[in-house]
């Protein structure tokens, strides 16, 4: 509310009230413009940060990570659904690509 009052009342009136040391009126328009430009650049920046933090093709992060390495194997029980675990990539590949059609 103070911002709107300051932006709209002309300078001479403010001087007559004794309030002389306020920022120039130029900033009443400049600050919103700065904010909007920052929001626009933020979109592009976020996209760029996403692309940069994608794991490169030669990193082990594409195959496994800390949780998968330390997982414990539960014993196989008859007639029960097997426990959930991270299947190693070699097994997955063999299942997908090797069986003869």
């Amino acid at each position, binding site marked *: 509310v103070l911002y709107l009052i300051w932006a709209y009342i002309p300078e001479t009136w403010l001087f007559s009230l004794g309030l002389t040391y306020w920022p120039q009126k130029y900033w009443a328009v400049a600050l919103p413009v700065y904010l909007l430009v920052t929001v626009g650049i933020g979109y592009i920046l976020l996209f760029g940060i996403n*692309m940069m933090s*994608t*794991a490169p*093709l*030669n*990193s*082990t992060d*594409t*195959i*496994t990570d800390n949780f998968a*390495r330390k997982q414990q194997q539960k014993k196989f029980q008859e007639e029960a659904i097997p426990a959930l675990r991270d299947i*190693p*990539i*070699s097994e997955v*590949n*063999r299942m*997908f*690509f*090797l069986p003869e059609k």
Partner: protein
Amino acid sequence: MAEERRFRSACGAPITLRRRQHSASCRELAVRGPRLQLRSLSAATSAVWLAAYGLFALSENSMVLSAAIFITLIGLIIYLHFVKIDQESLLVIGSLGIQVTSSYASGKESTIFIEMGQVKDVVINEAIHMQKVIYYLCILLQDPEDPQGISEVVPLFQSSKPRLDCLIEVYKSCQEILEQRKTAPQSN
């Protein structure tokens, strides 16, 4: 015996896969990309020369034209020697190791050899690459401390990214040889 089949790369360019079986435990797979096209070469050259001529018309400085010619020639040489990969090949020798060679258009060849003791497996992995999800073949290297762990991933066929059908062929060939080292373990 040699066999050649046509496939497409991830971008749609035609590539060929050549398979040679040297012996029961040795195979060579080569992926060859398209050669440098005359039309793309002339398009690039004309674009550079037109831009240089436009600059010359604006600035009346004749050095711009000779600079453009130098830039075109040097750019072409750098591209052929460092960027344009003609053929990438994979030589799998059952008891010895895997050798990966890339040959550039200027004749340069760069090789990497990985000993079989370090190779854990050759798998098809999928990963995000430049707004696309692509399948690529990679060699998993074994971690010396942890037999189940993976120390490094070496991606293959990076420049001529073949599609899944070509990768399945290469994968099956490699697995046939890699299985032999499990059934017939030799002391290294």
